[in-house]
């Protein structure tokens, strides 16, 4: 396959960026999207240019590092992570636009790499169960109904990639935050911190500059792990319940 790539290049957060055009040839359908970019980068290095910077690590769709907007879609045309997108999803001769996540809470580090530490700070504000090492009772002391365990798991699958934010016209982090709130609040172990968790995490999310939610649903469509949209409704319910209960 022969492709034309239009790639966002930006030296660092302080310098303005622009799209640059590159041609790549000899691309195999079996390549992953990132292997296609590897090919481009090898050529750029040999030509004495700086390769395109992009975040990536596991390349199995689980670490959440990769983060490209491809032809306007977070993670591209398939419902998966960029690293699991393969070139068979494109046709010979295609022009492909490649941009970083676009959200004010995710400033660009370089080229296609963005700073997602705002997500970490949301987790730090309450996305945990306080269970210091050594304090745990036997694992079978508290049975968890299977449906609850599965609902918790479904939300816990979030890989923190940020596609939800990138896809949202408001740059909202509601789906990310809701996934963690629901994962922990649905479990009996998470009950003691149920109210403070949702209140603190939502407050931190707002502080980080993420936009509000207007239930557009783009987040759940872009999510490579299928975190369901109703998680947002469930979090709103938790938040309302917590504000009324005022146990702070």
């Amino acid at each position, binding site marked *: 396959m022969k492709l034309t790539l239009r790639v966002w290049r930006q*030296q*660092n957060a302080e310098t303005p960026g622009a799209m640059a055009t590159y041609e790549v040839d000899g691309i*195999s359908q*079996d*390549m*992953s999207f*990132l*292997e296609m970019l*590897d090919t481009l980068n*090898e050529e*750029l*290095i*040999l030509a004495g*240019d*700086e*390769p395109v*910077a992009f975040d*990536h*690590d*596991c*390349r*199995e769709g*689980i*670490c*959440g*590092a990769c983060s490209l907007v491809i032809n306007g879609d977070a993670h591209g045309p*398939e419902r998966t992570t960029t690293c*699991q997108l*393969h070139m*068979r999803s494109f046709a010979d001769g295609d022009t492909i636009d490649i941009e970083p996540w676009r959200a004010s809470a995710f400033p660009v*580090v*370089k080229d296609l*790499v963005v700073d*997602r530490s705002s997500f*970490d700070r949301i*987790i*730090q*504000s309450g996305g*945990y*169960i306080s*269970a*210091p*090492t*050594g*304090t*745990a009772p*036997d694992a*079978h002391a508290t*049975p*968890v*109904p*299977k449906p609850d*365990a599965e609902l*918790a*798991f479904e939300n*816990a*699958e979030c890989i923190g990639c940020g596609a939800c934010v990138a896809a949202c016209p408001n740059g909202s982090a509601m789906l990310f935050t809701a996934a963690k709130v629901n*994962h922990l609040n649905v*479990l009996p*172990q998470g009950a003691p911190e149920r109210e403070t968790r949702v209140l603190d995490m939502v407050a931190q999310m707002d502080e980080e500059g993420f936009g509000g939610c207007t239930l557009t649903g783009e987040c759940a469509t872009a999510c490579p792990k299928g975190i369901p949209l109703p998680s947002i409704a469930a979090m709103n319910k938790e938040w309302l319940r917590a504000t009324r209960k005022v146990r702070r």
Partner: protein
Amino acid sequence: MPDYTHYATGEPVVDTKAPEGPVAERWDTRRFQAKLVNPANRRKHTVIVVGTGLAGGSAGATLAEQGYHVVQFCFQDSPRRAHSVAAQGGINAAKNYRNDGDSIHRLFYDTVKGGDFRARESNVHRLAQISVEIIDQCVAQGVPFAREYGGLLDNRSFGGVQVSRTFYARGQTGQQLLLGAYQALSRQIATGGVELHARTEMLDLIVVDGKARGIVARDLVTGKIDTYFADAVVLATGGYGNVFYLSTNAMNSNATAIWRAHRRGAYFANPCFTQIHPTCIPRTGDHQSKLTLMSESLRNDGRIWVPKAKGDDRPADQIPEDERDYYLERIYPAFGNLVPRDIASRAAKNVCDEGRGVGPGGQGVYLDFAEAIGRMGRKAVEAKYGNLFDMYQRITDEDPYTVPMRIYPAVHYTMGGLWVDYDLSTTIPGLFAIGEANFSDHGANRLGASALMQGLADGYFVLPSTINDYLARNPHTEKVDAHHPAVAEVVAETEDRINLLLSVDGDRTPDSFHREIGELMWEYCGMARTEDGLRKALAKIPEIREEFWRRIKVPGTGEQFNQSLEKANRIVDYLELAELMCLDALHRAESCGGHFRAESQTPEGEAERRDEEFSYAAAWEFTTTGAAPVLHKEDLVFEYVHPTQRSYA
């Protein structure tokens, strides 16, 4: 320069920390003997933890909970992305919730036997004991393990054992356990107990007066090289499988932290003990950047086979049942498809070498779920393995519900690593190594679902107990800072190395060298090794190293985000580590576990151990680049699990 293979044998290395007495009591005894640090004094101690995977994340969180000041590093943008996240299958624990005859002693026995009698009994027994607490801890943190309808935890079986002791969270157990540790760590970051430096990579170790006192690290965003100081340093930086270029490791997993520590005096043990995982997706071409694992749990229900006839290239569904060779079930009827990884990998290689492999290039065997779908129904198979099947389909464009999966072995894990004693201390006082970065628990072969167990055992329970003893005995009153001559020297060396990489301006990319060394290692130090091949590799590696420093091209500068520079700097260390791996493989003229020397096999083609000569851990001491290291042997004593030829037939 004298020949690299003419190494000297030095004094034996001895684990002085494991107490005497019955193996089941040693951990309690050690914890009682160890000195403690008064809770009020702990905040005065700083501990550096490098890495935020299962071992590092859990250690950082636990040390901070105890009151220590933790300074922690990860090269990823977030601690949640450490490669532990990718572990699929599960975590072992001797809970005996199935009432199927499991016990701490059985997990201990299985692990020592599975490691082909090259692990230290004291450590393995402690691991089995702690396994039980790990599950409790993780459940308390909200890790959503699979459950049964009654609300209790579900279990499954893994290779090399005949009980069901593996706890799991669909095919994402590593992710869920890591998020548990990450969340515990996040809680400590919020309280100020942990000072986290993300996108910061350790480039060297600072040793002052023979003790580890800090690290040199590079901020990957600004390129700034900085020093960090502490009373003790913990390396939780994972394994070195990426020396093979193609492996199931994440692209950025690397050996730099442990290799630099080795160069500063930490012995490196059993570097040739690498694990080749039997069930990975075969490579599709030269563009391949990494390999993807298909969880071992698939072998619970999938059946592995190849055609009986050589060169049979009919599609799988046109090969009748009686023309298929379910070779694992045939050769190992007792364990069938659930033999340990080293055995399954070698068997796959053998049938492919016979010309019976399937798929492009004949480098694959079938993993077939037709029987399972017939027995359990498609729905049940989907519930158990759905996400793995989806991943397979995305990568190969084939539907594993209708066409059998094709799998082939790939590098997955490294049992070798920095030598540590019972306290997980390396040979440099104040430097500890935990998780895959150390060598201690898996011998020559790791059993499935034991890596997660060991990472969390080390991080949550072992290190936080044993490090107290070191800190209590070594109250560092003299402060070390950047002006200390020993520190200035390390920083200068690091800066020189970075500047040299940037200044060569040759005509080959970092990846081209990584591929070259990787292919060489796979060829000569992979699934089967021979004296002849290893000597060839040992002759070639210095040539590649010389060429590297002549022809490497790293664009850009050191004062910026520069991924080519990161890569090139890691390859510098692979080019030395590869040499040690080959030497270790050459010197160990026996087969054991993942280390298969073609010269040492039984008439049936199984690995043949030579206990009289090799019942020891080989701990290597660095001298200088390209010069022979010094071998220190730690004799292995087996009081409880008597070494026998492993049999899974």
